[in-house]
């Protein structure tokens, strides 16, 4: 009479588990569903020898026993339900030789359930090409298990596999790690509350709410001693468990796995040899970056100009068509320019995410993260922080959104907080006009001072981001253990659909989320700039006429607008602010520009243009006006001291409402944007103050 063994095939997706199932069972397969759910259940029969047949169940692919989907929970149900007809006599965990580290996580979890477990290492035929060598006896000893090295592609190793599995009673069932050491008190209480049960099984039941073990609580005398904990605490314990398992796996692989990339001959290894090379890897990365940002600015300029002119025309058309009045002014001077200020950034954001998405889809981004991790980690950041920090040079909003792929909360928070230090494109107009005003002509080793100043400002921004990250990593008390597990995926041609969806989603989020906030602020800013209290505002026409009777009609209109702005609510605010900002070398007009540019930094130039009563698109004129502005003592307002002070203020200050809004959205708290706002502004104030006082 033949014996029958239940054999459960487990493994991460794409490890060749189903290929092994097909090789073993041939045509003796049955495909159905697990009871009550539409998860495919595949089972088949395989003769292990003349007298023993294996009833093989091909369980759905899963990365771990921490289930997050129905098909993953099927795996746990099968492994926990001892009375179930599919409960395995022996488990077989199929792994891929190339991704052994990640695959072994599941193996250690299955083994810890006390089920005899065989480790199958598949794709042995790829080892030579990929420069991989395994010391099987060492691995067997370190993992305390039996290993079958197979190749489902070549049908090699299957006979040895069958022979090994027949000896399953000799397999060790000792756990790989001691789960109790993660939190002694909690697991002791758990053990006391439910005696005679495997602690690890109980742990899986508790964490996954899968109660397949019938426990009679009445028999438990000291069940009241068991203190339940919050789900978030359980989540932290799960993370600790994962870290502990990876520590164990790392130690095992150090002993039994060697990867010699130099001797690998496959295409991926050839690419990797260059792309993650200690020197060439960085060079190629910076060339790609330079190309991307050049393209972003070049390709964006045409659609941005088009959007800009469309909104300007719309504003002009409505101004002419609609009846004159305050709402028409609000619409044409507040709402439409406000909307334009959002829509104009769509091309940059779309192009940025197009490139990021393509780099991710091709598998290159994982290589960048791998390259950068070591350097950034010294500053408390993650390798993945490089993407937001780079994106921040275009705009901090998508950059902050790009932090979502940083799993470690502390590293993600630090990245969010420091990203606005990197020089965004909105700072460029401010820098450009101030540099042209205060930096003298001349060159240093062939590089002109103006260009050097601009480059220095970019470097200062990036340097401050790293320095702030280092400070935050030392001061933030968030406990968040970090482990760097990055899988280098195979290179592939990006799927147009995936790229399109990413670009659409990111752009839509920007327009709908940040856009609503910018629109509301634009309305309020317009009102504050268009209304003012008292005679000075309401009778501005007569006052200007009295004081400047020699002006023609056009000059008079400009002067009245300027006088009204000075006495508007925002003008009064600027005057109120003046004592605070005068130690930095600024007057009240700059104060207004500082306030209005809080909506967006580039508004600074436009605000000054309005204040100085000139057309804001005639740069020479605003430049000349700014150059001719003098203080009460006759000294020019914009000199080296005040100009550099102002540039450094913009380099460090949190002058962007929409960035604050997105930080609020991403951190789900007002605490962090508030800290960011005050921290950065105070820092900017101190540096600008010291700069002005030192240079003046």
């Amino acid at each position: 009479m033949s014996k029958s063994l239940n054999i459960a095939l487990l493994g991460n997706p794409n490890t060749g588990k189903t290929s092994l199932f097909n090789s073993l069972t041939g045509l003796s397969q049955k495909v159905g569903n697990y009871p009550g759910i539409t998860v495919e259940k595949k089972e088949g029969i395989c003769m292990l020898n003349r007298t023993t047949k294996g009833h093989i169940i091909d369980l759905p692919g899963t990365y771990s026993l921490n289930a997050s989907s129905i098909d993953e929970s099927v795996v746990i149900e099968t492994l926990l339900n001892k009375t179930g007809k599919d409960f395995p006599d022996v488990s077989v965990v199929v792994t891929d030789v190339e991704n052994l580290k990640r695959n072994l996580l599941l193996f250690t979890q299955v083994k810890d359930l006390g089920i005899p477990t065989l480790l199958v290492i598949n794709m042995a035929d790829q080892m030579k090409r990929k420069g991989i060598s395994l010391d099987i006896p060492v691995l067997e000893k370190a993992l305390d298990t039996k290993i079958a090295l197979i190749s489902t592609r070549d049908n090699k190793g299957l006979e040895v596999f069958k022979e090994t599995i027949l000896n399953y009673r000799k397999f060790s069932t000792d756990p790989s790690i001691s789960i109790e050491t993660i939190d002694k008190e909690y697991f002791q209480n758990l053990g006391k509350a439910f005696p005679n049960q495997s602690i690890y099984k109980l742990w899986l039941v508790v964490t996954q709410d899968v109660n397949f073990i019938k426990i009679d609580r009445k028999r438990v005398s000291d069940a009241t001693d068991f203190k339940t904990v919050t789900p978030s605490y359980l989540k932290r314990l799960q993370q600790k468990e994962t870290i502990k398992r990876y520590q164990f796996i790392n130690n095992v692989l150090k002993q039994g796995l060697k990867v010699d990339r130099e001797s690998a001959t496959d295409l991926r290894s050839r690419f990797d040899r260059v792309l993650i090379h200690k020197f060439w890897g960085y060079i190629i990365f910076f060339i790609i970056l330079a190309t991307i940002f050049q393209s972003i600015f070049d390709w964006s300029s045409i659609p941005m100009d088009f959007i800009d002119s469309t909104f300007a025309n719309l504003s002009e058309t409505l101004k002419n068509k609609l009846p004159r009045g305050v709402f028409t002014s609000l619409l044409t001077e507040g709402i439409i320019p406000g909307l334009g200020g959002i829509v104009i950034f769509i091309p940059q954001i779309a192009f940025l995410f197009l490139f990021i998405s393509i780099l991710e889809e091709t598998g290159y981004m994982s290589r960048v993260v791998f390259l950068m991790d070591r350097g950034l980690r010294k500053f408390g950041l993650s390798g993945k922080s490089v993407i937001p920090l780079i994106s921040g040079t275009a705009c901090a909003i998508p950059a902050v959104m790009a932090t979502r792929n940083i799993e470690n909360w502390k590293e993600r928070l630090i990245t969010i907080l420091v990203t606005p230090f990197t020089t965004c494109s909105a700072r460029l107009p401010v820098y450009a006009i101030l540099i042209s005003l205060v930096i003298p002509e001349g060159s240093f080793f062939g590089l002109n001072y103006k260009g050097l100043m601009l480059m220095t400002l970019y470097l200062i921004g990036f340097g401050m981001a790293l320095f702030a990250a280092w400070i935050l990593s030392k001061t933030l008390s968030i406990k968040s253990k970090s482990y760097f597990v990055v899988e280098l995926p195979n290179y592939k041609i990006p799927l147009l659909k995936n790229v399109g969806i990413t670009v659409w989603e990111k752009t839509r989020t920007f327009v709908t989320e940040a856009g609503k906030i910018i629109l509301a602020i634009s309305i309020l800013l317009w009102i504050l700039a268009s209304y003012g209290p008292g005679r000075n505002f309401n009778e501005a026409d007569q006052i200007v006429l009295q004081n400047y009777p020699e002006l023609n009609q056009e000059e008079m209109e400009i002067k009245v607008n300027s006088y009204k702005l000075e006495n508007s609510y925002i003008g009064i605010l600027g005057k109120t602010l003046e004592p605070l900002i005068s130690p930095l070398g600024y007057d009240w007009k700059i104060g207004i520009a500082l306030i209005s540019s809080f909506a967006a930094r580039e508004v600074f130039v436009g605000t000054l243009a309005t204040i100085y009563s000139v057309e804001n698109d005639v740069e020479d004129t605003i430049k000349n006006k700014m150059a001719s502005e003098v203080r009460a003592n006759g000294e020019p307002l914009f000199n080296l001291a005040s100009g550099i002070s102002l540039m450094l203020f913009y380099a460090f200050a949190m002058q962007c409402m929409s960035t604050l809004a997105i930080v609020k959205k991403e951190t789900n708290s007002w605490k962090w944007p508030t800290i960011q706002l005050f921290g950065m502004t105070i820092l900017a104030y101190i540096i600008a103050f010291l700069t002005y006082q030192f240079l003046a």
Partner: protein
Amino acid sequence: MDWIQTILVIVSAIGALMFLLRKFIFKKQNSKNNNCDEDCGCH
């Protein structure tokens, strides 16, 4: 017609102010039982 325009401006201002207040200050709090803290990855 001026009074209509004035009313529209007032409505826009109130709308903008209400939107910002509701968005940032009087935001509906998340449920305390949402199993979420700083490590849950839901931010």
